Structure formats: structure tokens, C-alpha cells
């Protein structure tokens, strides 16, 4: 079991307000997988991610990352995880290059390696010309690129992407997906949340649907669709949220 990239068992999270965001979630992600976690807003996706990365404290259950406990003795688990959060959370006081350098420093990377890795990722994400600019001056698309570069900076074995393409233009979205596929092929395990179902269907090896804090379906996109007696992931999603009438198969073609 310790070979799993992510092993979540009976994870529960109740906020002080009384909201139960996670109700006994169990999930297993194999090393090298590109795993999609899908569900409507408020289903518990971000809470699950926050529990895995230490930004939220679970009420019950366990999380292991490559065999390391991610809750109580979390140092090795966090070292293995890179997070690109849904909301841009860049430090306004830092420049683009400093953002990457400081992040790697928080993960204990030596100075020389930080410098080389910074140059490499700035080049990869077309940010070299912006390296000395403060992060608050960047466009939305550049901020997204920088957030992904930052998540990659310490060479995580498990990369968590929480809606990485929300609000970005088509060109950048495709660019980001290409990069995600590339690093996945190079061996990085990826846990992805997105509202772009077609892309999730194309990109992800396996998918889990989460609703009201519970995993309600899991498997390949075909298996998840079959679980809802439909033929596509989109229809399965519509069945999940109780909006089957919106299915494209119901749309009449106007002659």
C-alpha cells in the first residue's frame, strides 16, 4: 500500500461552522497516474486538496503520500507534493524569480540548484523577460503560469492542480495541458480538478466523482459513465448533479 502516490482513507472534515465538507472519503491514486477529481462547486474537492497539502486539518481519517503520513508527521509527505491552487495566491512583494526561489527555499533546495531550476522554469513557462517584475503587475495568464511553475519548482512527485485553467484563454489552456501531459509522461503523478469534462476525459487515466463530501463513482471515464447508465462523462456528470435534461443527446438538431 505504501507504493501508492496518494492513499486517502475515511477522510472527514467538519468545519467549525458545522459544515461537513468531507464524509469518509477514500481514494487511491497510483504512481504515474493522471487522476481527475470532478464534482460540482462545494462538493469537497478543494477541501480534500487542502487536507492533503496541510492547508486544512482533517477531522478524521488518514492521508498518505508515497507512504508518508500527511497529517501528523507531514514533512516527507509535503516535500513530495506540489500545489497549484485554484485562487491565485502570489506574494505581491516578490518578483517572478523570487517567487520561485523562495518557494524552493521553503522546501530546502540549495541556492545553486534553485537558481538553475528558476531559469529552467522561467524559460519553460515563457516568463524569462518578466523575471524581475513584481507578481502583482502580471496578467492573469502569466500569474497562472507562474503558479504552475512554482508548484513544479521543488520537483514534486505528486502535483495537485486545482482548476489550473479556470478563467484562462484557449491558447494558454492548451499550452498548460500540453505541459501537464508532458510532465505526467516523465513520471510525475497528477491529481487534477477541472470543470472541463471533455478534457478530463481525454487527459485522465482515471476519474472520481465527488458530491456532498463523498466519492460517488470512480474508474476510467467509460466506467464512470457506465455507473450512471450513460455513454459520456458529461452525461454522467449531469446525472450526478440531477440535470439530465441538459444532455446534448436531448438537443434537437434544427434542420
Amino acid at each position, binding site marked *: 500500500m505504501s507504493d501508492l502516490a496518494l492513499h486517502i482513507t475515511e477522510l472527514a472534515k467538519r468545519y467549525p461552522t458545522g459544515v461537513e465538507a468531507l464524509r469518509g472519503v477514500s481514494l487511491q491514486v497510483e504512481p504515474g497516474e493522471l487522476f481527475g477529481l470532478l464534482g460540482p462547486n462545494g462538493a469537497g474537492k478543494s477541501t480534500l486538496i487542502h487536507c492533503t497539502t496541510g492547508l486544512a486539518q482533517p477531522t478524521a481519517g488518514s492521508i498518505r503520500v508515497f507512504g508518508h503520513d500527511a497529517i501528523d508527521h507531514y514533512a516527507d509527505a*509535503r516535500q513530495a507534493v506540489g500545489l497549484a491552487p485554484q*485562487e491565485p495566491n502570489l506574494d505581491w512583494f516578490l518578483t517572478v524569480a523570487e517567487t520561485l526561489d523562495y518557494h524552493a527555499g521553503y522546501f530546502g*533546495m540549495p541556492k545553486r540548484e534553485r537558481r538553475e531550476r528558476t531559469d529552467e522554469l522561467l524559460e519553460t513557462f515563457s516568463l524569462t523577460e518578466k523575471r524581475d517584475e513584481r507578481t502583482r503587475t502580471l496578467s492573469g495568464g502569466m500569474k497562472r503560469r507562474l503558479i504552475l511553475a512554482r508548484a513544479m519548482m521543488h520537483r514534486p512527485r505528486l502535483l495537485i492542480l486545482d482548476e489550473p485553467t479556470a478563467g484562462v484563454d484557449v491558447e494558454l489552456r492548451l499550452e498548460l495541458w500540453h505541459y501537464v501531459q508532458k510532465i505526467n509522461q516523465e513520471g510525475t503523478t497528477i491529481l487534477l480538478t477541472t470543470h472541463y469534462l471533455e478534457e478530463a476525459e481525454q487527459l485522465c487515466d482515471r476519474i472520481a466523482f465527488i458530491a456532498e463530501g463523498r466519492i460517488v463513482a470512480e474508474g476510467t471515464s467509460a466506467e464512470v459513465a457506465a455507473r450512471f447508465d450513460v455513454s459520456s462523462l458529461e452525461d454522467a456528470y449531469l446525472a450526478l448533479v440531477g440535470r439530465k435534461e441538459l444532455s446534448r443527446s436531448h438537443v434537437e438538431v434544427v434542420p
Partner: protein
Amino acid sequence: MSAAQIRFATLWRREVNRFMKIKKQTIGAPLLETFLYISVFGAALGSRIDKLHGIDYVVFVIPGLIMMAWSINAFTNNSSSILQQKFQGAIQDQLSSPASPLELLLAFSLGGFMRGLIVALLTFTAASFLVDLPVDHVLVLIPSLFLVGFFFSQLGVLIGVRAEQFDDVAFAQTFVLQPLIFLGGVFYSASLLPEPFQTLTHFNPIFYMINLVRYGFVGFSEVSIALSLLALTAATAALFAVNLRLFGDGYKLRA
């Protein structure tokens, strides 16, 4: 350097880098403010005030001003830095790293400590050019100043963590901290006050801090040095323990 040392150095560097990037505001402005206090209360008014307990008025005032500079800057820096990072969400980058609560707390604390130290050192240097400022008890002065700096650094962290809006920080500074400092005897001797104000002053913890620092410089104190040092050490340790508990619990930092 080990990974843990790199991590801590980076966390601390980020805090120092923040205030050095806006040094006109964080170093220049408080330095000017202290210089104006020395000019007005020391040189202008001081020339018309007789000696206090056998000490020139300007020399009597300067130790309190140095303590005030260190304490306010340590407090302001840490409370603002933490609250700003919470607002931006940038603090997630540190919180999701392998850093322990102790490493995070120390790094946040030492940022303000350093800023206070720089302003206090510059104030001392400038004051030394203006007046003949003695240092009578260096073995009391140095630990006293360091304890005062660390106490207010901790207080700044506590307020920053608890605060949900900038008003909370401003309230603590304007309506609690500054009155306590001003009424703690920076500009006067408590023995000159009529009752009940003289007695009330002895309930102000900052009164003891000012006396410790003043004793270190000019050898005069209105309170027991040993008892004050002991109380300050205990208060600083207690505040540190409270903060460490809050960081361990993730209070208002993690969901």
C-alpha cells in the same frame, strides 16, 4: 546547510526582504518620527526642563524612545506581514511546505525583531551624535532590549494571526499599544505623577520595560531590575508558548 536550515533561512529572508523593499516606510519613517521626538521633547522642550533624578531630560527620554522604536516596529511589522499574507493567500506557500510550526513562528517573529533592531540601532547612533548618551549597565541593557524586541515581535504575530481585517491591527496599535507606551513613562518619571496615576502606572507592563532599558543606559530605575527582568522573561516565554500553540493548531491559518 541542511534542508531545514535552508528552509528556515528562506522563511526569515522573506520577512526581512518584505520590509527592506519598502524601507522608506518601514525604516525611514519610524526613524524620522523618533528623531522628531528627540528634537521636540529633548532639544526644544528639554532645554526648559530641569534635570530628572539628576539626569539631563534629553538623556532621560532617549532610552525610552529607543525602546519605543524597537517595540512598535517589531509589533507593526509582524502583525502587518502576517495579515497581508493571509489576505493575499500567499501564506499558503509557507503553510504547505514541510516547515514546522516552530520554524514558521520563529521566522515570522524574527522579521519584526530585525526591523525593530535596525530602527533602534540607527536611533541610538543618531542620538549618540546629538547627546552624550551613556551605557551604564550593558549586561542589563542588551538582554532587556532583546527581550522587549522579542516580546513585541510575539505580540505582533499574535495580533496578525488573530486579525481578520486591517482595522484589527490598527485598533491594537492605536488604542492599546501606543497609549500603554506613552503612559509607561517614556517622557516622564512616574514619581512626578499625582495619585492615583502614579499607582496606576505600576500596572502598566511597559513601565517596567522602559525602566529596564533606562537603567541599562543611564543607571536609573524606579522599579526592581531583577524582578522586572524576571517578569519580562516570563511574559515573553508565555506569549511565545501561546503563539506556538496557535501555529500548531493552525488557528486562523489553516482551515
